[in-house]
């Protein structure tokens, strides 16, 4: 299956990754090759086989409903690129025409 640079632009939008035209083109080539290789798995007759999501068969163990860790809010905020008054800072989302709060 041929994957075009238009397809790549669409996928890059879905995955929220900025890409220029050169990257689109080279990724179109790569993904066409990769998906061509992937097609070989259809040679196997997998009818009647259940999909395997996970190899672990054990039941999930429940733990007691107790506070295990202290609140790490401060430590989490310290590693964020931009915070203000204890909140993550992002460009304005509602109203104001998508302006920049930075």
């Amino acid at each position, binding site marked *: 299956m041929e*994957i075009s640079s238009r*397809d*790549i632009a669409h*996928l*890059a*939008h*879905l*995955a*929220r*990754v*900025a*890409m220029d035209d050169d*990257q689109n083109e080279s*990724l179109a080539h*790569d*993904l066409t*090759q*990769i*998906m061509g*290789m*992937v*097609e*070989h*798995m*259809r*040679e*196997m007759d*997998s009818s009647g*086989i*259940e*999909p*395997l*999501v*996970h*190899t*672990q068969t*054990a039941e*999930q*163990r429940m*733990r007691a409903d107790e506070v*295990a860790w202290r609140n*790490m809010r401060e*430590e*989490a905020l*310290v*590693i*964020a*690129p*931009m915070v203000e008054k204890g909140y*993550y800072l*992002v*460009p*304005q*989302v509602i109203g104001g025409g*998508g302006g*920049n709060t*930075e």
Partner: protein
Amino acid sequence: MHWLTMMEMARGLESREFSATELVEHLLSRVAFVDGSLNSFITMDRERALIDAAHWDEARSRNQHPSPLAGVPMAHKDIFCTKNQRTTCASRMLEDFVPPYNATVVERLAEAGMVCLGKTNMDEFAMGSSNETSYFGPVRNPWDITRVPGGSSGGSAAAVAAGLVPLATGTDTGGSIRQPAALCGISGLKPTYGRVSRWGMVAYASSLDQAGLMARSVEDIACALSYIAGFDDFDSTSADEAVGDYIRMLDAPGKMKAGLPKQFFSDGIDAGVAAVMGKAVDALRALGIETVELDIPELRYAIPAYYVIAPAEASSNLARYDGVRFGHRCDTPADLEDLYKRSRGEGFGVEVQRRILVGTYVLSHGYYDAYYLTAQKVRHSIRRALKQALAQVDFLVAPTAPEVAFPLGSRNLDPVAMYMSDICTIAVNLAGLPALSLPVGFSSGLPVGMQLIGDDFDEAGLLQAGHLYQKNTAWHRHHPDVATYSGVE
């Protein structure tokens, strides 16, 4: 002193032959001489390592050390979160990320008293088979610095092989411990899925990722595994299975039977590797291990199924890097979408972007059944076939990699050719089984690895077979001549 195994270092500390401080100082100076050529470390913390070493020397003098490993140096792959020490996953995205907590693996080895010298280089987000996708530059193979060390745990493999540390952690999603171990001539264990906690390990493909160990002997791996294995409250997928005293279990293996799946010995295996493997299998027979040839045709579909499942999981896992909570953030975003897109476009390298897009494609509307669901069915067939094989034998034998270390830059422009480097390792991850890679000889002067694949939670059986082999051979005692590029012995 640097060629001592981890257990030999532990015994040297116990008999006061040398102190932890002397040992750490020696290895740090070796890193300073050698690693300019290898690039196996991303971040070193010399000061911290010397403080820890002094602490354990003092504790040992009072006989209050927590384990025989107290004061023994090691290194962590830079995918494991280390509290207050940056953890980059070899990505620009996490170039300045300093985790607020330790991974369980880090915590458990620190509790045993091991001294971490630094964080090792790797393929970006563990996506690669040559260590060339690292944002911090490629790692070079200690046996020939014009060649790759394998990947993704290439820094850990090179550091152990070059005598910079006796033990390093690694992670294995499709062969990332075993393949670099083979290409660098050391031993590497990928435990059963769930055997070791994934808490604090940066996620790539969560149903396949598993933490493990790399060392210059099977005995060292057995010892360290006893400390890191076992259930963890913080990882609901970690297995609640008893952990053995793997050192005690090393000796006295009973009669063993090994299966040789013919697919692993034919499709795309280099002639030099095949010749070395032939001798290694003969050596197993000479040690009393019965061998039987097996036919497992499902193995052919492992790479295609993997390159649906792993990218699908990766595209979902890596959605967390949004430029908001942690990691790289672009300058002056116009709006929220621009913030997401440019932060991710700038923060991720090309192989990571490639896999995110493949994952997005196979999970997208209209393709889910055709790709993702089919791959999961293929995965089930592969696991079933391997389990059936393992019902007849104690373990399976295969080359770890289809060829020896290849030249830097020879393959990184052709992703599909690169993906074939893992042709012998990937089925094990899809099936969730444990596997051990051992050095078994050389082809064109470069190391060849043999892989032993075991049944669920039978790490002990693999370690027994590997130890038996190493007690009777000397391949794991061969070391690269670093003097040719470093100016030191």
